[in-house]
């Protein structure tokens, strides 16, 4: 069972409910309205924040001068199709048990997705945690258990811990297919692209819970943009927007921390230590965007035995993408889902052309799900 944000609508949840108060939200909107004197374009990096914005209609509550564009913070969406095709090839092997977060299962590869691979006889399992995959490896010593390690810095400590525990236990039948990506290089890629219009960022609160926010300080200074570390509930996002807009109006390219109940400047030292022990930084291709230097994580040489790409001899394949899908532009905030001619017609969650339509953090999925309905207060 996965824990979804809707849980809190059924149970009282401390640290969630109090950040969903509509009256307070409306007062924040008023404070924003009084602060803004000219047009500004802001980007929220994280797809989870995109969903909160659409779910609660925050974009429609803001003054017309404030434009929100949606960022690349959907790890499933940016996982390159080459890697997904490799995952599908591994999952099709009779000796393999292929484990993945549920989000990845319906993302289209060149010819099929992982769910179709499962329907065709592949042993594909949806797991909640990499530790579930580790347990499967312990219980099935005659099978090769592969975990699809997709994620940003938030997920890296969990995946590092799974590899470290496998190494400690001498588990020979566990490996990961790493598609790990990093946020700061992506922000730099967006800011340095010709024609960039983003003037301020909401930085992702859970990435910064792990990594801290000192990495963002040189970026804010170099590009003269405010960056505010922000949480995921409606009041968090409204306060993050207020802080970013106030910094812009006052001409302060500062890094500030709205999500201070979880984030410290230096981040989580224990988590960072294990990430560094198990992973190293590498160049990484982002689906729809291209290679961003030093933007990914791969296993350190010492842990190379746990690298699924080394364990399975999967040849490079020619990849195919839908020619109509504009996911790359969506993920860079250059287009919004409603500007795509295929949106809702030839591309739906049932028949997706690209990953942002099926991932729970995809911008297209958010517009499809919340676009036609009243908000969720």
């Amino acid at each position: 069972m996965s824990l979804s944000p809707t849980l809190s609508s059924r149970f009282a949840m401390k640290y969630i409910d109090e950040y969903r108060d509509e009256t307070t939200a409306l007062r924040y909107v008023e404070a924003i309205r009084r602060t803004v004197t000219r047009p500004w374009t802001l980007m929220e990096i994280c797809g989870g924040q995109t969903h909160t914005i659409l779910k609660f209609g925050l974009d429609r509550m803001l003054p017309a001068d404030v434009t929100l564009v949606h960022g690349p913070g959907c790890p499933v969406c940016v996982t390159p199709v080459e890697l997904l095709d490799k995952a599908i090839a591994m999952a099709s092997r009779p000796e393999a048990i292929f484990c993945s977060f549920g989000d990845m299962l319906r993302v289209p590869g060149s010819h099929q997705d992982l769910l179709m691979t499962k329907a065709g006889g592949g042993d594909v399992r949806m797991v909640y945690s990499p530790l579930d995959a580790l347990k499967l490896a312990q219980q099935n010593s005659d099978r090769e258990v592969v975990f699809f390690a997709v994620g940003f810095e938030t997920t890296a400590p969990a995946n590092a811990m799974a590899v470290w525990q496998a190494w400690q236990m001498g588990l020979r039948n566990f490996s990961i297919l790493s598609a790990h990506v990093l946020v700061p290089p992506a922000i730099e890629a967006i800011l340095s692209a010709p024609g960039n219009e983003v003037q301020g960022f909401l930085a992702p609160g859970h990435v910064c819970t792990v990594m801290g926010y000192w990495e963002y300080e040189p970026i804010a200074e170099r590009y003269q943009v405010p960056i505010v570390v922000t949480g995921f509930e409606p009041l968090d996002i409204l306060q993050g927007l207020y802080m970013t807009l106030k910094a812009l109006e006052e001409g302060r390219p500062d890094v500030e921390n709205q999500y201070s109940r979880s984030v410290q400047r230096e981040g989580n030292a224990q988590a960072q230590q294990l990430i560094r022990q198990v992973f190293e930084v590498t160049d990484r291709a982002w689906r729809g965007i291209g290679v961003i230097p030093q933007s990914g994580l791969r296993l350190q040489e010492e842990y190379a035995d746990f690298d699924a790409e080394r364990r399975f001899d999967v040849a490079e394949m020619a990849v195919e993408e839908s020619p109509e899908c504009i996911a790359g532009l969506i993920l860079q905030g250059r287009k919004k889902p409603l500007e795509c001619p295929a949106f809702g017609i030839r591309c739906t969650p049932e028949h997706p052309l690209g990953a942002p339509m099926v991932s729970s953090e995809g911008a297209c999925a958010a517009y499809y799900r919340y676009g036609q309905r009243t908000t969720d207060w």
Partner: protein
Amino acid sequence: MCLGIPGKIISIEDNPLGVPMGKVSFGGIIKEACLAFTPEAQVGDYVIVHVGFALSRLDEEEAQQTLEALAELEELAEEQGEPLTYTLQ
């Protein structure tokens, strides 16, 4: 994918490798979470849990500050004679 849910630690016990694991309650639903990255967290504390791992112990004082920041804004607005009342335009 970066979804993190706040939950309350109910109990803590080491696994066979000596890694601390906890039972964490999310509004009454209990799940196991690895506490290796939050060694300071005690039973009764709230932690942010992501894919079965606690990533931070939530700071009650800081949490209150987010909620109180608006109150300060409102006091300022009232002093200036323009209370922050939202009206649909």
